[in-house]
């Protein structure tokens, strides 16, 4: 048993921190928010082609680095800290995770090398409201219906969507520019991550990705890992809320002293620290389970714990950041509001805290 990070893991984390401090500062985040697709192409290109983040958790056989959930968790923590706007989460944390966990050998060979090289963006729906149907069409499949809550879909994405087929639910890959595909992107209150609804009208694809032999274990594993990775992002974001707040209260003076010297303020910051460090322990622990031999039932509970806690902690800390910044915290000019909106949006997605705790209770009781 070993709970410390390796030198390589520390290096990956520190490199991510350095890159994002430079390329995903407040100005960059706001520029990305104002773009149509929700990200700056040069930042994404650097992430994929130069930094190799997309290759981290892809097996070496498919051109990746063959590392695992701990490394990806560490990158995600930094991505959250810097509120990175990028199709990285959808492509790597969701898409590559799905393909790794339940994909056929063919689909892995076809898609993962391009993901690892940063050449392919995957847009994924993890919604459990399945409104897509897939029918056999010779060697191909024909898809119809609506894909909901598709994350980070742009014109040159590859869509990874679950659809109902005669033999059960399958996972299908469809190029977003295939005839019959209509993307309607909605910019939410949280403009730092985009979701689309996808209409499919007799869309033909040859690529069904799911391996029935892997689905039963791989499906829950992919869901658990997706929750782990977003929890890591929420952890980073919560840490940023605290750091922004501590920096502000150490400067802001009222009644002739810095407001950070008032116990009412100190204690609330300390309470944030308690929650954040507890969350960090939970997220690191869940990641360590994912990197160990934990059975999928245990992994599910661990990652549900991490995501439920992360949602609650981030929302609390984002709210505290606004409150402790006072009036300026309520302005669009200062950053706490950006984190508050990300906190709200990520709380709903991939399982609300209540749903996740009910999953845990279902096992315990």
């Amino acid at each position, binding site marked *: *048993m*070993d*709970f*410390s*990070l*390796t030198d390589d*893991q*520390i290096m990956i*984390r520190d490199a991510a921190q350095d890159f994002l401090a430079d390329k995903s500062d407040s100005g960059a985040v706001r520029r990305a928010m104002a773009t149509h697709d929700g990200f700056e192409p040069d930042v994404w290109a650097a992430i994929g082609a130069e930094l190799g983040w997309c290759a981290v958790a892809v097996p070496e056989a498919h051109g990746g680095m063959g590392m695992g959930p*701990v490394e990806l968790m560490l990158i995600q923590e930094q991505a959250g800290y810097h509120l990175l706007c990028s199709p990285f989460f959808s492509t790597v944390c969701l898409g590559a995770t799905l393909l790794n966990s339940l994909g056929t050998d063919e689909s892995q060979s076809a898609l993962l090398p391009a993901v690892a090289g940063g050449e392919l963006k995957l847009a994924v729906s993890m919604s459990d409201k399945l409104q897509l149907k897939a029918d056999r069409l010779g060697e191909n499949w024909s898809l119809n219906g609506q894909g909901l809550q598709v994350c980070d879909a742009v014109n040159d994405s590859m869509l990874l969507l679950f659809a109902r087929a005669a033999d059960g639910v399958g996972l299908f890959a469809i190029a977003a520019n295939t005839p019959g595909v209509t993307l309607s992107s909605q910019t939410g209150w949280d403009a730092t991550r985009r979701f689309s609804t996808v209409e499919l009208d007799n869309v033909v694809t040859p690529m069904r990705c799911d391996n029935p032999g892997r689905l039963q274990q791989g499906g829950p594993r992919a869901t658990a890992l997706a929750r782990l990775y977003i929890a890591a992002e929420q952890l980073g974001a919560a840490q940023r809320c*605290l750091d922004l707040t*501590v920096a502000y*209260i*150490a400067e802001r003076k009222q009644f002739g002293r*810095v407001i*950070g*010297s008032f*116990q009412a*303020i*100190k*204690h609330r*910051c*300390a*309470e944030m*620290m*308690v929650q954040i*460090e*507890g*969350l*960090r*322990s*939970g997220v*690191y*622990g869940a*990641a*360590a*389970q994912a*990197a*160990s*031999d*934990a059975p999928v039932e245990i992994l599910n*509970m*661990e990652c549900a*714990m991490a995501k*439920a*806690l992360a949602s609650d902690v981030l929302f609390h800390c984002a709210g505290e950041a606004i409150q402790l910044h006072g009036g300026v915290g309520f302005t669009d000019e200062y950053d706490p509001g950006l984190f508050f909106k990300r906190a709200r949006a990520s709380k709903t997605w991939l399982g609300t805290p*209540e749903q*996740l*705790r*009910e999953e*845990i*209770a279902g096992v*315990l*009781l």
Partner: protein
Amino acid sequence: MNLNESPEDKAFREEVATWMAEHLVGEYEVLKHRGGPGDEEAYPELRKQWEKELAAGGWTCVGWPKEYGGRELSIEHQVIYHEEYARAGGPGRVGHIGEGLIGPALIAFGNDAQKAEFLPGIVKGETYWCQGYSEPSAGSDLANIQTKCWVGDDGDWRVSGQKVWTSLAMDSDWIFVIARCEQGTKGRHGLAFLLMPLDQPGVTIKPIHQISGSAEFNEVFFDEAVAKAGHIVGEPGDGWKVAMGLLEAERGVSTLGQQMHFAHELDLIIKAAKANGQDRNPLIRDRIAKAWSGLRVLRYNALRMLSGGADVALGREALIYKYYWSNWHRDLGELAMDVLGEQGDVPAEDFDILRLQQVFFFSRADTIYAGTNEIQLNIMAERGLGLPREPRG
């Protein structure tokens, strides 16, 4: 970062579990899960006998160096030992203050004569210790010690004053005391660290009756009580240094054992909920899942503390730990009583129910002793976040 256990660790886990299964039986059966916080008055004599049983098996002072009678176990194996001890329902250790606090302090700061005189009794489970730090005017402000000591005509020390919140004084043979040896000094200066037998004319012990119905805490009064000249640890004036070094001696290895007791308490809550139908109440289900999640956090947090590796916020995990577990435990007690409902309102005969009632009441002390919530928040804000320090009078 890997949670898989090595074959050697597994074998050691098995060894401890087997020993416990073979020895915590017969007359000791009644001790299972007894004697923990809030239950320390349970079976004191039998628990002392159990300490000797442990000692005979070589299971006391497992982290101490071999030259002082310990097993010199690695941190990992100490953790495994504490976990398996608790998992088996091992009773609260009457000897824990000797083993965990004064023993390590003597190893670090004591002279050869003191080590030879006191360490063997602790290892053998024969001598029991309690800690004399807090006073009526020295609570959160621990350095505000008023108890006085001076050297008498015979060359021995005399001690007068009062200690309070002394755990297990009623079951102990010796007490270690910080007292002011340089009159007129303030705060952490001018203190001495003395070892004193409790069974002597100048010492009076009075139990404190608590809201939990038990009385494990005591007041200890000293009226020109005697500490032998050779029973001062360090020099006069070093008292604070020794006292603080002692608090740091425990690296938190026993905390994973404490978590096993917490897990047992959560199991009792689940059992009670299933028995009375509260397991179908969505609000209770949510709180049980929260409690389970908090326990996972505590475990991973303790593993972070023990790994002490290169972490993004080195040391913060240690700063939050006491606040986290004590508040979690208090919530657990409230959950337990909400699950029990009317059954919780009357002191129970069934120990599985009584234990939950004890958790509810005794956990109110968890957020007070060893640094109140408010002091913990100050420490975290100042040491963890670098915010301005509180003004001092």
